[in-house]
């Protein structure tokens, strides 16, 4: 007989009966979450208590010492700084550009749908493809951007600071080296690629948000004497604020999780310039095989991301406007 019928037969209390009915619906998700979300979270914390010996044969229990050491280390702090900088570099410009594009693409012009699709197309690019598209521009030897910069009379920029895999002697090499001392170009480069990718997603999100704003609000503002800029400032932005917030939360989460484009474009370098926390975790765990230290960073990353999201919600509570 069915589970609910059996429960009734044996006069189980109502709560238990309800659980039995609901169980088959919830079980798959619960098992998966348990195995791949909650258990790993706990295990990560636990792994952080152990340090690997130099031969990677045993783990030695060190309690909170590893937490203290890793979190206080300059490498971790620096990777955190890189991550935060990267987040700022990617989320803010992407939001601004996407708002601009979304407003442009929201006009009632014939054929504007074509432009909407074009503006959303970076979304189709995904991580690896974006990296390739930008490598093509920024690559020290085959990148187009440097050619153009040179024609303008400016010195070439070593966007990725890795000197490329130049196969031949390159007349520009001597000029390149003068930029290597500034690793920040690398972070900028990866950020530009990420902004491009984000713009695709944000434009779609913001366009949707724009379309929820009733036309009549704009019309009323026009009759009241508001020009284009006043309409944007007094109608569009306030009504768009929940959507902007949503996009920014998504953007921050993406920035903290960004891995693929960094791996392909710069491999975390040069000199750790693009070594965000995720990348550091990856290197520690899967190149250095120091699972303990890596787990500590993973746990820290989780706490920080959680904190940031909650902070974002709190910061914004009074300011943005929900209907």
């Amino acid at each position, binding site marked *: 007989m069915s589970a609910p019928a059996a429960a009734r037969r044996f006069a189980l209390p109502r709560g238990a009966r309800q659980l039995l009915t609901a169980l088959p619906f919830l079980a798959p998700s619960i098992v998966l979450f348990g195995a791949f979300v909650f258990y790993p979270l706990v295990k990560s914390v636990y792994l952080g208590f152990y340090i690997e010996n130099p031969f990677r044969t045993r783990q030695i229990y060190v309690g909170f010492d590893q937490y203290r050491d890793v979190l206080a280390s300059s490498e971790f702090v620096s990777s955190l700084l890189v991550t935060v900088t990267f987040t700022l570099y990617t989320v803010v410009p992407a939001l601004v550009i996407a708002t601009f594009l979304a407003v*442009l693409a929201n006009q009632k012009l014939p054929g504007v749908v074509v432009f909407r699709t074009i503006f959303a197309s970076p979304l189709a690019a995904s991580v690896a493809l974006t990296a*390739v598209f930008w490598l093509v521009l920024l690559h020290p030897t085959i990148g187009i951007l440097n050619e153009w910069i040179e024609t303008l009379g400016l010195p070439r920029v070593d966007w990725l600071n890795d000197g490329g895999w130049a196969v031949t002697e390159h007349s520009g090499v001597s000029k390149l080296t003068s930029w290597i001392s500034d690793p920040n170009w690398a972070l900028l480069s990866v950020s530009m690629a990420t902004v491009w990718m984000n713009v695709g997603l944000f434009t779609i999100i913001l366009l949707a948000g724009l379309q929820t704003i009733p036309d009549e609000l704009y019309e009323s503002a026009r009759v009241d004497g508001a020009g284009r800029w006043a309409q944007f400032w007094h109608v569009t932005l306030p009504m768009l604020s929940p959507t902007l917030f949503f996009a920014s939360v998504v953007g921050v989460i993406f920035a903290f999780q960004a891995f693929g484009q960094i791996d392909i474009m710069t491999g975390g370098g040069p000199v750790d310039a693009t070594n965000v926390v995720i990348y550091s975790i990856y290197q520690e765990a899967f190149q250095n095989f120091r*699972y303990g230290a890596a787990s500590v960073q993973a746990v820290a990353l989780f706490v920080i991301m959680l904190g940031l999201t909650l902070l974002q919600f709190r910061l914004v509570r009074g300011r943005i406007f929900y209907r």
Partner: protein
Amino acid sequence: MSDALLRRWLRRAPAYGVLALCAAVLLFPLYVTFANSLHPIAEFLQDPPPSLFPSHPQWGNYFAGGDEQGGSGGPGVTRYLFNSVVVAGIITIGQLVTSTLAAYAFAFLRFPGRGVLFALFLATMMVPLEVAVIPNFQTIQWLHWTDSYQGLVAPFLATGFGTFLLRQYFLTIPSELKDAAEMDGYGEYRFLLHVAVPLAGGALATLAVFAFLQAWNQYLWPLLVTNDPDLRTVQIGIGAETQEPFRINIAFANTIIAFLPMVLLVIAFQRSLVRGLFGGSVKG
């Protein structure tokens, strides 16, 4: 053309101009990749980078197929695409099924601890893979699922976001409908299949697009879990190909090839994605 009509188009011209300019800037990296993909490899080995307007386009680069010269030992872009489609497809279907079931329970069934459990489901949205990656990797190793499709999809078959989204949609179904169905003799499963699911079509489409895009975009997990080049997804495969200077033009061609299906997907489902995220308040 009448005078008023002409004036109207003239007034629109700047708007189109700006739109076109933005589109050009946005698409520029794509175009350069495309242009580069049509050059012979020699162009990449000398000083001026390949021109933007190849004089003798080498369309053969697009058909370079698998890897005769050992481009990182990879089987070629069609295989990568196949793998990505399989992996993303399984993940999408998995998420649709698990989240529909769970959302149904949260929306229509009452049981003790429902609130707490739902909060836990939502909390999983806060735990991205990267945080849990080491133990998950160890789990997959322990299951001997490395270098397999199972290993690639397992951690992603359930989704808090999907459960949330579908529950929202289910909640808009009036409870009278369920009452009527119950009086008509529908059990839970039949109600789910014949009433709830069809009515949630929009949310399912949105979730499907979302899940597919996310799965397609994965990089870290496939990198860790697979070593076998035959199992590389598009992300890993293309990424690997960029490490090969002597096949870089073919890598570019492959990138364009990998890009096309996703563009079509985005075009086709742009509306659906947007509408699902914002419920009914989006016009047209």
